[in-house]
Structure formats: C-alpha cells, structure tokens
C-alpha cells in the first residue's frame, strides 16, 4: 500500500514538472493584436489652428510666424533651443575622453567630411532660419523654424544655400493655419536626403518611406499600420527619442522596438531566448536599401578629373553617380545584406583634430562598442560606409577641406579642384595645423540599420547564421554558436571513434561468420 502511494505521489510530481517544463512560457499571443488595435486608432486633431485669430494674417517673414507661435506656445522655444536639432551638437561622455560636445561642428564623417565652412549650404536641413556663414544664430528664438517640422500642408520647403531660409514664394499664413504633429514628409525631407541625395547616407531611410508598402516597412506600410516617424520616435518637450551613432556616444534617449513589443515578443521560446544577445533588427531587417540604392564607398582621391577643362559626372543605369569631378568615385548597393557588430549603446568618435597612430590602418570614424562578454551588448545590423578620404600624413590628422564657395578662385575644392589650397583654408578655419601635404587614408563609418523592418514572414532564417560556412554572423567569432562552431579535436576524434567502432564490429562479425562456416563445413566432412 505504502509503495503504491509513493508511486502515485512520484508520478504526480513527474507529470506536474513535465507540464511546467514543457509549457511554453511565452507572451500572450494577443499582444500584437492589442498593439495593432492601439495603433489603428488615429486620434483626431485636438486643436484647429485655422480658427485662431492670431493666424488670420499675412506673414512676410518666417520669423514672424515663429513669433506668433511663441505668443501662445510660450515655453516651447526653450525646449527647442535645448535640443541637438537646434544646437548642432550634443553633450556626451566618452570613456577615455571625458565630457565632450559632439556635433556637426567637430565630428568627421566620410561623406562630405564635415559641416565646417559649409554652414550656409548645410543649413537647408537645419531647424534654424537665417544661418550666417559664421553659423551664429543660436540665441535668437525667432530663428526657430517651427514650420519645417509642423507644416501639415506638405508645401513648406527650404531654399538651397540660403542659410536655412524657406523658399520665398510660400504662403506662410496658409501653412501656419495648417500645422500639426510632424508627418513622415516633415522628417523625411531632411533625413532621407542626408549626404546630398536620396538614401545616400543611411541606406534604410529614403524617399520610398514617404509611401512604403508593408514589404518595405511593416510598420510604415500604407497598406498596413501606416505608422509615422513620431509613433516610434516618441517626443517629450521637443526631445525626440532615438538617435544616430554617427554623432552620439552615450546609451540614452534611444528608441527601442521593445518599448511597444516587449522583451520577449515571440510565441516561440527559442526565438525569445535570442533577444538577450540579438537585437530585433538583426532578424527583422534581412536587407536594407530595399527600393533605392545607397552609397557604400566613396573615394575622394579621384577628385578633379576634367573633360575639356570642365567637371563631369558618370552615372550608372539607375542614375546613381559613380563619378563626380567635385566629389570623386562612388559605389552603390541595393537590397544589401547588413554587416553585423556587437553594440552596447555607446560609441566613440573621431573628432576634428584627433591624431591617429597607424597610417596604414583603417580609421573607424564612429567605433561602436560591445562584445559577446558585454552583458549590455547585442548583435545589431549595420551599414558600413567605407571611404578613402584626405589626410595630412605629417600631422596624422584627417583634413576638413573647404568644399563650398559661391565663386571660383576662393579656394573651394568644388570650384577650383585644388586639394592643397582647400585643405589649407579648411584647416585654418578649424584652427588646426596643416603641413601642406595631402594624402589619402581608408576610413569606415557605422550606420546602425533600424528601418525597413520586415514582418515575421520575411525575417532572417535560422540557418542563415547557424551554418558552418559563410553565415551572416561569420565575422563575429568571439562566441560559440550552435550550427557554426565546433571543436576540431572532438569532431576528428568523434569521427575516428565511430569509424573504429564500425570497423571493429564488422571485423568481429566477419570472423564469427567465417568461423561458423568453417565449423559447419568441418561438420559436413
């Protein structure tokens, strides 16, 4: 009797533990449905600016509009003036460097290299109005360009090389009476065209996202959730969540998939396990530059070739420049597989005036930090933009050349094609030494890929990483990955053991058969 009770108790424990172990510990499957329902309700505008008396007038200057905005929104301009969108820089702490202000003033990239000396042109995408050559408009609140972000008529446009001023013919009154939450067009008009053309810089942010289908971006698809930029880039007091690591160093104020989807969004426990070490984007953005090509390589060393004394350009069959006399040679790519790196949310930057040690090594302009052993790091997909750019070999310092000028003869590279003079003028403006020599050095820049998200039916498949050869993660070798890694010793030893066992058993069996036959024959005789 005792035995039976014991047996029953034991069986009960076993069954219960089996159920506990085998039951999927997953997020409720309704989570995604709830999210969909939440995002499908688009709230109506709370305020109709069209009826406000203060806006029933004609505005001569965009600054007048801003003044009128501030007359009601009487603290918002202080928020804007604290933002990096306004200041062209962020306060960042970089390990080994301390607190630094990083922004377009001092960060170097390997596209048009830097903003210094080119502010009037760069200001086309700045949220300030009236940017002077000296770049000094940072104190006057009426120079805030409210409309570039809040225009909902999609008619507002900035003029080229006018220090951030809008096109003069616009009806500012009409635009001011139709302001609202930023739309995709407000953000996209600057962020899709960084580097001087569609999708040049990011690779995952381009004009196809104005009206994408679900297969381009599962969130923004106009045939799907039709979400806008600010649905993910949640903004408090004009502080917009999410930032790019070309200019950011610290792990703060980021926009995460997890904010909406949670840490373990999958029904499969195996997939949820991945979220500890693998960012959502790694599997959910199998390719970027889905619609239009992005620039992958920029060689500045070929600048200045002329035809009949005139600069010229060469385009590929899709219309992408492959050579420009003023900028050099380019490579482009479409439907690209990202490269993969560990990333813990911090980065360090090559800043104007930094000296490098090794002139044969490739300079990483924004080194992303992280490794397998770093508990905060996850694998993320990146576009790596590679370049060959000008450097001073004597001072071992990247050169910030003067690129833009209104006229020839002012020493701008894009007008005069003189590397030495443009380098001398650029470095003088930066207050940095210049030896008079210009050579070229390889650099690379990391662009985390966060957009053009694919739904679950188009994600990276298991064996694209868990495979012996040429997997997506073949370059990340600081950890053991099932399906890819093995011990050659165990593999060889194991195979040898199996072969020996088979051969041994076969030999043993054969001798038995032969012995038995002999015996039978002997018996017959």
């Amino acid at each position, binding site marked *: 009797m005792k*035995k039976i009770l*014991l*047996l029953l108790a*034991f069986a009960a424990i*076993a069954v219960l*533990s*089996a159920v506990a*172990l*085998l039951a999927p510990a997953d997020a409720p499957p309704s989570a995604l449905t709830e999210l969909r329902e939440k995002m499908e309700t688009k709230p109506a505008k709370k305020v109709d600016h069209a009826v406000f008396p203060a806006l029933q007038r004609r505005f001569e200057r965009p600054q007048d509009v801003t003044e009128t905005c501030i007359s009601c929104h009487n603290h918002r301009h202080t928020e804007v003036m604290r933002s990096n969108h306004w200041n062209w820089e962020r306060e960042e702490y970089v390990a080994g460097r301390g607190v630094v202000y990083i922004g377009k003033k001092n960060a170097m990239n390997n596209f048009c290299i830097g903003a210094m000396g080119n502010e009037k042109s760069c200001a086309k995408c700045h949220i300030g109005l009236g940017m002077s050559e000296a770049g000094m408009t940072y104190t006057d609140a009426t120079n805030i360009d409210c409309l570039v972000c809040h225009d909902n008529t999609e008619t507002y446009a900035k003029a080229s090389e006018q220090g951030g001023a809008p096109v003069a013919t616009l009806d500012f009154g009409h635009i001011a009476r139709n302001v609202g939450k930023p739309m995709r067009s407000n953000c996209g008009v600057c962020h899709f065209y960084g580097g001087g053309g569609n999708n040049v810089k990011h690779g995952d942010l381009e004009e196809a996202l104005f009206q994408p289908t679900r297969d381009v971006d599962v969130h923004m698809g106009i045939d799907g959730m039709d979400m806008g930029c600010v649905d993910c880039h949640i903004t408090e007091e004009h502080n917009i969540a999410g930032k790019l690591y070309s200019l950011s160093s610290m792990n703060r104020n980021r926009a995460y998939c997890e904010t909406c989807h949670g840490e373990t969004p999958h029904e*499969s426990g*195996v997939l949820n*396990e991945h979220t*500890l*070490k693998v960012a959502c984007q790694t599997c959910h953005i199998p390719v970027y530059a889905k619609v239009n090509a992005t620039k992958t390589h920029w060689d500045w060393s070929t600048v200045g070739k002329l035809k009949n004394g005139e600069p010229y350009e060469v385009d590929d069959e899709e219309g992408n420049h492959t050579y420009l006399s003023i900028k050099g040679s380019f490579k482009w790519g479409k439907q690209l597989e990202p490269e993969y790196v560990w990333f813990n949310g911090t980065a360090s930057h090559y800043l104007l005036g930094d000296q490098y040690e090794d002139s044969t090594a490739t300079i990483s302009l924004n080194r992303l930090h992280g490794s*397998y*052993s770093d*508990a905060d790091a996850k694998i993320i997909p990146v576009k790596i933009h590679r370049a060959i750019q000008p450097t001073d070999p004597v001072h071992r310092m990247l050169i910030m050349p003067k690129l833009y000028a209104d006229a020839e003869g002012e020493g701008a590279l894009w007008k005069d094609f003189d590397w030495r003079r443009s380098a001398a003028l650029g470095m003088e403006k930066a207050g940095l030494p210049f030896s008079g020599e210009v050579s070229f050095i390889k650099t690379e820049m990391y662009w985390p890929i966060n957009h053009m998200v694919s739904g679950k039916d188009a994600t990276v*498949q*298991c*064996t694209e990483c*868990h*495979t*012996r050869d040429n997997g997506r993660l073949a370059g990340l070798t600081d*950890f*053991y*990955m*099932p*399906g*890819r*890694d*093995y*011990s050659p010793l*165990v*593999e060889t*030893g*194991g*195979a040898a*053991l*199996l072969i020996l*066992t*088979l051969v*041994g*058993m076969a030999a*043993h*069996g054969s*001798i*038995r058969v032969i*012995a*038995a036959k002999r*015996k039978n024959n*002997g*018996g017959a005789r």
Partner: protein
Amino acid sequence: MSPVKHVYVYRAFERFWHWSQALLIMFLAVTGFEIHGSISFFGFENAVTYHNIAAYALIILIIFAIFWHLSTGEWRQYLPTLTHLRAYLNYYLFGIFRDAPHPTKKTVLSKLNPLQKLVYFGLKTIILPGMLLTGLLYILYRYPQQHGVEALNVESLRTIAILHTAGAFLLIAFLIAHLYLITTGDTVTSNLKAMLTGFEDVHEKDDDDTKEVIQSQETIQQPATETAP
C-alpha cells in the same frame, strides 16, 4: 549443467524504459547533429524544438527509471565487478569464434555479464549524467544571466557544447557496439527477442545460494572444436 528454463527476465516497465530510451537517444542524436550542423533533415528550428522536447521526455523517463530501479532493487544489477571480467574479454576476443559458451549463466538475479556491468555502470554514472548536465546547461544557460544571478552565469556555451558533442559521439559509438552485440546471444536473435517479449531461456540456479551462478573456468579453456562431434 544447470537446467534451462523459459523465464520472464525483463519486466514490462523495464522493456518500455529500454525501448523508449533507445528511441529517444537515437532521435536526440539525429536532431542534435542537425543542430550541430552535420546533417540537414528536420530544418534547424524544428530540430531545436524537437531536441528540447525529447530531452525533457528523456529526463522524465530517466526519473521514472531511477525510481523503478531503486524500488525493485534492480539497481544492483549494475554494480561493477572485476570477477570474470578477464574471462569475458577472452570470450569476446577468442571464445566466441570457437562457439564457446558464455563464461557465466544469465539468471533473473544476474542479467548482466561483467563487461555489461562495467560499460552500463560507466554509461549511467558518467556519460548519461554528463549529457544530462551539459544538455540542461545548454538549454538554460542564458537564464541565470537574465535573472542577474552573477554567480550562476555561464560565460560561454563553448565548453558546454563541446562536451555535449563529445558525449554524443561516445553514445553513438556505444549504440553501434550495442546493436552489434545483440547478435552475440545464444542465437543471433535471442537477445532481441528477450528484450521484446521479456522471456528468455535462462539457467536456473543450481541451489539456493543467492550468488550468481557461474560456470567453471575450465569450460572456457576447453577448445570449442573438441566439443564438436
């Protein structure tokens, strides 16, 4: 010679345990080597899912088996002994080819020969617990980190995975040898039949002595040919 009798040697649970363990281990081998990247059959994701389910099933089975062995006292069958070990090595290396009889007689009280005892003992104390432990760590290794218990953190899967793979190779080698040795019973199929039906022709005990019944060493030394007519 002791009389031979058709006896119920392997009980129902024992046979259920044996065959389900065999199937599970073979299934684990197939799915495991797919996860390892050696073969491609179920698809990687399915292989992982199936491997984990089979692993838990095997653990539950093993728990039941341990309980059964303890409650029936059958665990004593696996206590290793050096007695007659040399005789058995001799038998498998030489005697078997001359049709010599097994050095000891199988009885209900002593199902395993000394070589089996030794091998199964090693299997049950080293290989299977090792596979179980590395397997569980393999499945669970991220969770300590997730819950922030630093002392329980496992830095890397590497050691766990390599030990688990090494164990898998050993188990397959065992399986090959095991499958072959089935054929070395009194007839080629007698061992298989016994493990399927539970019944086997075993030698009755000569007396009431609880010690295992063995045959004298002289029988082994006797050349098989001389026993032939």
